């Protein structure tokens, strides 16, 4: 058995979700190789070579990989998969974008967002917004898996000494090109990797209030900021703050839900957090059914008080 893991990176540094994917890949048994496809991404390949448990790094450096377009990545990966039994990638927006394209071209059913490896062909995964966990067994000769980052420990970023081998690009597709990106810039920790998260909901009422009340508490705690879909839809917070079934899946040490009712779809994204605190004026709000500590009352008075007392 040998496993190919696709690295998540921004051409400058290797991103943490890769480390969870390496752990999952290791549990399949056999050699773990990491593919770094990017442009000007030598530092990423070097970082990947240091990850504990990685036997080899394949480095494809080409302009066509600069923005991780699946039209360019899939042919590269499909070509390499002749030598591998499994393809593993973190279930990030990039991973989810490319893996099914690869799976279809390999004629394999992808297994999405695995939570555990029960055997070389058997995995658990969430269905129905995490309200059920299915154990599935694959009949395909090759496996294509996306890995839920919160479900696997991160492989150590150092301690490994893999060789780096250059591989060549398969040629750029003429059908897709990158136009531009608007990335949310924040000095705060990244949401999916954060130890503490403060999330705001519809109750905040405006983007200004969201900043005025959520930000100081997040600053005090060194926390990342998240949001419910209602808050994002209303424009109080950017789309990449959304936590939930169709947003980001998080599992921090501490999750503070402020003015969030606790819809099934929101709970799907945060109910594996270690400690959940909820502040809501409605004592019947479903969020209290999962909260370790609930505080009933008006957030506009409670939040400044809490920020002051921490």
């Amino acid at each position, binding site marked *: 058995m040998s496993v190919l893991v696709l690295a998540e990176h921004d051409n400058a540094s290797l991103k943490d979700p890769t480390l969870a994917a390496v752990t999952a890949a290791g549990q399949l048994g056999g050699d773990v190789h990491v593919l770094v496809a990017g442009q000007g991404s030598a530092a990423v390949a070097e970082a990947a070579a240091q990850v504990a448990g990685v036997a080899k790094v394949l480095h494809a450096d080409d302009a066509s990989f600069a923005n991780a377009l699946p039209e360019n990545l899939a042919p590269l990966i499909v070509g390499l998969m002749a030598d591998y039994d499994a393809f593993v990638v973190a279930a990030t927006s990039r991973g989810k974008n490319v*893996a099914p394209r690869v799976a279809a071209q390999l004629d394999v059913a992808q297994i999405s967002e695995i939570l555990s490896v029960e055997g070389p062909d058997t995995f658990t995964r969430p269905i129905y917004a995490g309200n*059920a966990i299915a154990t599935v067994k694959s009949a395909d000769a090759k496996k294509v898996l996306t890995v839920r980052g919160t479900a696997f420990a991160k492989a150590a970023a150092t301690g490994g000494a893999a060789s780096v081998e250059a591989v060549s690009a398969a040629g750029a597709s003429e059908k897709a090109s990158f136009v531009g990106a608007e990335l949310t810039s924040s000095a705060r920790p990244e949401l999916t990797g954060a130890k503490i998260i403060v999330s705001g909901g519809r109750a905040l009422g405006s983007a200004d209030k969201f900043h005025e009340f959520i930000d100081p508490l997040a600053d005090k705690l060194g926390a990342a900021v998240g949001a419910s879909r209602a808050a994002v839809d209303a424009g109080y917070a950017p789309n990449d703050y959304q936590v939930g079934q169709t947003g980001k899946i998080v599992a921090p*040490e*501490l999750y503070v839900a402020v003015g969030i009712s606790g819809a099934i779809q929101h709970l799907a994204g945060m109910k594996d957090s270690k400690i959940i605190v909820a502040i809501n004026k409605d004592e019947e709000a479903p969020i209290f059914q999962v909260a370790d500590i609930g505080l009933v009352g008006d957030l506009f008075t409670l939040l400044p008080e809490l920020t002051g007392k*921490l």
Partner: protein
Amino acid sequence: MKVLVPVKRVVDYNVKVRVKADGTGVDLANVKMSMNPFDEIAVEEAIRLKEKGIVTEIVVVSIGVQQATETLRTALAMGADRGILVTTDQVTESLAVAKVLAKIVEEEAPGLVILGKQAIDDDANQTGQMLAGLLGWPQGTFASKVAPEGDSVHVTREIDGGLETVALTLPAVVTTDLRLNEPRYASLPNIMKAKSKPIAAKTPADYGVDMTPRLSVLKVVEPSKRQAGVKVKTVDELVEKLKVLGAVA
């Protein structure tokens, strides 16, 4: 340009499903079923493109049990022009669905296929990407903006760090994210009109696709339950509890 919109019949998003006691699956008896919410957004987007004069015909397709006709009727009542129902009693895995869709694409030759990014029952998030892979078409997934112009389309995508825009040559596959639009409700006259819109009856065999699942479900269990904790009355109590739990210094 013709647009193809695949719509899936799923458990309504308001239903909290229950896992069957024998661990074979979730209990779907007498549960409200609806169109997958992301597919409503896909249908809406197609209708808006038609209203702008970019799209000439909207074909909706569903693969599943006979009752998926209702899902197609809903799409027709919103404003789609005709439907294709591919009936099967098998579990509809994304790969097999993508294969059926690829055959329909060959027959219908749409300029765009707009799918939901994810079905809220299997939460697979695969079918659109698989279809694009099978067809060798470019893909714009998790779209929050779709702007066709001439023989290409600009798609703004919701990604982990924010937004990005890609330019795709038509024909292309697009999958919808939640903020692309707000789907309309079908009006009563349109619901009546939809009753006479055509739905073609097909089977996977008509397209030469084997629906046999590649994955067998060994068991389905409930996730470990969280115990509801305590309610505190004051901020002081909250701070105290957080300190005891070691959550804050």
